[in-house]
């Protein structure tokens, strides 16, 4: 009797409210996917219908077959992978130095990496645009990757330092005893152990770069347009073609949703470590 009452109480006090919240969190997403598989006839008819009468992949076919969207997806992939590569390549050694070496200015420098991550984007994009134009990097993948480095490097230096800090110093000492140089220690001993942290950081950089709009918009032109920029332009061009727009949105959203769900537990651990300690 008491059992049943508390189960009912939990249903009303916990499960129902959380169900409402989950519905709120997922509804816009599901609505986008539903819209993308409805034929145009249903999309332009008022009053609106909720479930598609006849589901279709026409919008996806049109989008990939008749627009530049396929190329935009490739551009986004190249930029995001490039940002991950650049971000990790420079921040892993830097984070190793912050974690393992003691040198003057260490704390100060580490704090600066946190601080520059907070600089308003709008403060950087105009000079970056001017700089890239001078260097001839406007409308190239490399230019956008460098733009995305502004958030990728500080973030991954910070994340990787805390991952390295979690690995015991004795590992390095043992490797040094065996005659390994510092670089060898990093590559052969520390990196394999820090791999989960590196993968998490890499995926987070990938998602952030894939999702980014302002830098990509400022630094790209016709030739290396990324998906977020292309979609934003579509909104202007095909005002009423919501089928196409939502198909594009779905194609962009699904990969990052999956990646985010894969790393979410470890990412949350890394992001909140600093906040929860204390």
């Amino acid at each position, binding site marked *: 009797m008491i059992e049943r009452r508390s189960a009912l109480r*939990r249903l009303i006090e*916990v499960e129902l409210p*959380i169900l409402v*919240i989950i519905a*709120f*969190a997922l509804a*816009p*997403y599901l*609505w986008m996917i539903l*819209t993308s598989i409805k034929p145009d006839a249903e*999309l332009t008819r008022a009053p*609106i219908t909720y479930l598609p009468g006849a589901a279709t992949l026409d919008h996806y076919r049109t989008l990939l077959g008749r627009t530049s969207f396929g190329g935009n997806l490739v551009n986004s992939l190249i930029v995001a992978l490039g940002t991950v590569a650049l971000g990790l*390549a420079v921040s892993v*050694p*830097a984070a190793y*130095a912050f974690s393992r*070496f003691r040198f003057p200015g*260490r704390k100060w420098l580490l*704090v600066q*990496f946190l*601080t520059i991550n*907070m*600089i*308003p*984007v*709008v*403060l*950087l994009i*105009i*000079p970056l645009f*001017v*700089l890239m134009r001078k260097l001839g990097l406007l409308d190239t993948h490399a230019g956008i990757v460098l*733009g995305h*480095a*502004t958030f990728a*490097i*500080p973030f991954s*230096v910070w994340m990787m330092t*805390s991952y390295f*800090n979690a690995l015991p110093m004795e590992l390095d000492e043992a490797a040094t005893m065996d005659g390994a140089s510092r670089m060898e220690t990093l590559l052969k001993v520390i990196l394999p152990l820090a791999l989960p942290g590196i993968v998490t950081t890499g995926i987070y950089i990938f998602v952030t770069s*894939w*999702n980014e*709009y302002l830098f990509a918009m*400022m630094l790209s032109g016709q030739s290396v347009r990324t998906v*977020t920029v292309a979609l*934003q332009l579509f*909104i202007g061009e095909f005002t009423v073609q919501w089928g196409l*727009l*939502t198909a594009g949105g779905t194609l962009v*959203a699904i990969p990052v*949703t999956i990646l985010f*769900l894969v790393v979410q537990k470890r990412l949350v*651990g890394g*992001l*909140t470590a*600093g*906040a*929860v*300690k*204390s």
Partner: protein
Amino acid sequence: MMTAATGPRIREAVRPFLFLAPALVITAAVIILPAVQTLWMSLHDYVLFRPDDVPFVGLGNFIKALGDEVFWLSLVNSFVWIAACVGLQFLLGLGTALLLNQSFWWRGLARALVIIPWALPSVIIGLMWTWMYDLNLGVINDVLLRAGLISTPVAWLARPDTALASVVLALVWQGFPFFAVMILAGLQTIPDEHYEAAEIDGATRWQQFRFVTLPALKGVIATALLLRIIWVANSLDVILVMTGGGPGFATHTLPLYAFLKAYSAMEFGYGAALALMLAALLLVVVAGYVRRIAKEEVR
């Protein structure tokens, strides 16, 4: 081996900087240098299509802002935007976290699903909400009409009195999972014994929340709030996609105004000054956040 004593010592001293060099060089090139250039631009009347004629105007751009009605409008909107977005994200996030901390059989699934809005690009968020707010074909008008809450469809994003609130709702949707996740992580560090002890003392559930949960969460909440204020204050892409700052100046915030001045009007000098004023206003929040994190993390 004459330098046996000094050689290794120098190498020892230089080595950290060799490891740091690539990160420092790129950071200097893409962050520090542009930031300094912004400072320089803000002191000049720099307009893109007149690159050879860049007169020094001192604090002219900043003084111009003080007399600029749109600047003040944007500033007020920024405060409303930050307070509404962060406040509502926090309250909804706190509620979500408290619920997700209870035990029920599909809790793992719920915890995973709730973070999905966090993963999405701003452009997609702008796109899906613009579609839902659509005047004739939007699902929001349809639901409200069916429920009898409105009698005619509302052009949510085109009316000065509803535009800002409509964009705020989209950003609350995107941002509440962040608070939920941070606060949930904090909740999981509170030992059960604290609640048991409070229960023995006859504390009601509200008292347990007030005197056990909240004090334990103080640190997490402060850090999350500071981080989110910075993030929301700087964010302009969802607004840019949904309203472009309109109708009129109804959804202009300070970073958006700075961006539009620089990007659309090509007034780099004035845009730079506006961006710097935003940075200056955020300085206190950033300093607070950095100090909190540095104290905990930097050893």
